[in-house]
């Protein structure tokens, strides 16, 4: 176990290092620099001072080493475009917004999806099954984008039930201000519903035909007990292993939704930062999100073992 953890940790560090390097040089490869828009109208002397302030007067390799050195100490530096904006501040202000949006989508979407999946598997071949399957194909065939625009038009534009754009701030940041979050949450949750309904249905159908389910039935167990104790437990592995990936994606995966509903989340800012070639912000966000991603992959591996004792961690007995 200890050996496995150490190996994973070394891999994590190497991967993060490669990602940071790749991000740095990719951004450097783009023609132009983040300051030119601000600096072009300035006299030569102020321009040089501005470039010197952000360290952009130094050659690429030197800046690379400096940036990496600072990053090791946890300092990603200040935004090139918005003075005073730091990665730390960004995470504090914007990450909660995206996280709440993502989590709300996931909690609603996954629970509804799992229920529909159980329904479809248990009532296989009936109207209910076909409706769930048809519904989920329909849902995955409509992009977030179109869903978002449609919901916005109908429920905010025509019916005025919910605000068109916006997001709770201040003390409502984590809890409260629900009416503004309804439409964005709905928009995002549909893909989870479709995905989890299909996933659970397929894996439950695998289990339903097993002999031990027949045994349980012939023992005279009630249907509810069979589903809970025998079918669900054994068909939950694909769902358990998909869940951490969903958590990882849900925090960052709402670019379109944030863009449609003007939600001040981390995704929208990321797009802006990349467009502005705001190196320090992009680098910081990329590295932080990658760490999150790699950690979640690691947790997935642990979960595999927790759910199914037959699977052993690689490198352990």
């Amino acid at each position, binding site marked *: 176990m200890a050996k496995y953890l150490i190996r994973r940790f070394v891999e994590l560090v190497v991967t993060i290092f490669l990602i940071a390097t790749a991000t740095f040089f*990719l951004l450097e490869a783009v023609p132009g620099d983040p300051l030119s828009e601000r600096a072009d109208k300035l006299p030569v002397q102020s321009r040089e001072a501005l470039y010197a302030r952000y360290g952009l007067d130094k050659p690429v390799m030197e800046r690379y080493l400096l940036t990496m050195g600072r990053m090791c100490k946890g300092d990603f530096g200040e935004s090139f475009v918005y003075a005073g904006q730091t990665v730390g501040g960004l995470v504090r202000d914007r990450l909660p917004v995206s996280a709440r949006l993502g989590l709300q989508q996931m909690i609603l979407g996954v629970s509804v999806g799992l229920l529909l999946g159980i329904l479809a598997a248990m009532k296989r071949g009936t109207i209910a099954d076909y409706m769930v399957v048809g519904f989920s194909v329909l849902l995955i065939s409509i992009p977030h984008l179109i869903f978002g625009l449609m919901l916005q038009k109908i429920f905010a534009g025509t019916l005025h039930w919910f605000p068109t754009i916006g997001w709770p701030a201040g003390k409502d940041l984590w809890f409260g201000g629900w009416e503004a979050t309804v439409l964005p949450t709905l928009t995002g949750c549909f893909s989870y519903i479709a995905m989890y309904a299909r996933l659970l249905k397929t894996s439950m159908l695998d289990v339903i035909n097993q002999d031990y389910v027949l045994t349980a039935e012939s023992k005279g167990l009630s249907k509810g007990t069979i589903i809970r104790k025998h079918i669900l437990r054994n068909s939950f592995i694909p769902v358990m292993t998909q869940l951490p990936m969903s958590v990882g994606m849900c925090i960052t995966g709402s670019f379109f939704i944030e863009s449609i509903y003007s939600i001040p989340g981390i995704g929208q800012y990321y797009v802006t930062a990349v467009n502005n070639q705001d190196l320090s912000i992009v680098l910081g966000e990329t590295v932080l999100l990658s760490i999150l991603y790699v950690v979640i992959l690691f947790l997935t591996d642990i979960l595999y073992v927790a759910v199914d004792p037959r699977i052993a961690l690689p490198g352990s007995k």
Partner: protein
Amino acid sequence: MLSQEKFRVVGYTQEEANRIERPTISYWQDAWRRLKKNPVAMTALVVLIFLIIMVIIGPHIRGYDYIAMNVVDKNQGSSAKYWFGTDNLGRDMFSRIWVGARASMLIALIATGLKLVVGTLYGAAMAHFGGWVDDILMRIIEVLNSLPHLLLTILIMMVLGNNLFALLVALSFTAWCSTARQTRGMIKQLKESEYVYAAEVLGASPLRIIVKHYVPNMLSILILEASTAIPGFIFTEAGLSFLGIGLTAPEISLGVLISQGQKTLDFYPSQLLYPCVVLCVIVMAFNLLGDGLRDALDPRLRQ
């Protein structure tokens, strides 16, 4: 008294006994037969063929040029003259939608082709060489996968400019990774199988093993990859163009049309509605056909 002639075969010859009554059916014939029995998949196939025909001839049906402006007839709704109405410059939406759908479909198909070819070659190289080559190639995939795709896409579009070529590169830049992983797994598995051993022992050349054993065995997986990748690419293209990162006007794709339609959503919803419906129908047809193909091609799902 038993004698030799009492044990004669009567009634049919050796040849007849060895004849196979029913025609032998290859894997592909069988898959096609299964697909034909699936009404949903066949409907999807018909819809797709119809869409492909429309994408080719659609822009010419009404006789309006898709970029010709007509200031008198701008922002019209559906009518006998303009089936899908006109946009804010008086351009015929019906023609524009099919031109846009053509671009979206072409982008998706080419990107899928690139993904499959690059992914298969890369995966085959990983499985074939193994050892440290495998390790390094795998690490590259891991790094590519953990970089945010949006970052790569935006950067590629910034370096190469907002054009079709750049979009294709951007879309397929990371997409091949999953194909490569799957191919690697498949070939590693196939390499250990008895019939490949047998072929090697019989002196088959590596090329023959690849063409006769690896490719046919992987083809069904690759077809499934393609059927899930195509709708994905259409989605991504639409999303990127909507965010202003993908194609931009005057180029036309469904994404561009949707982002233009969104600007007039409040007053002329039809300009958003029609491109959205066409996009959804295309994606749904591909998804349903993909589901049907999965049932037809995957031996494990057969009863």
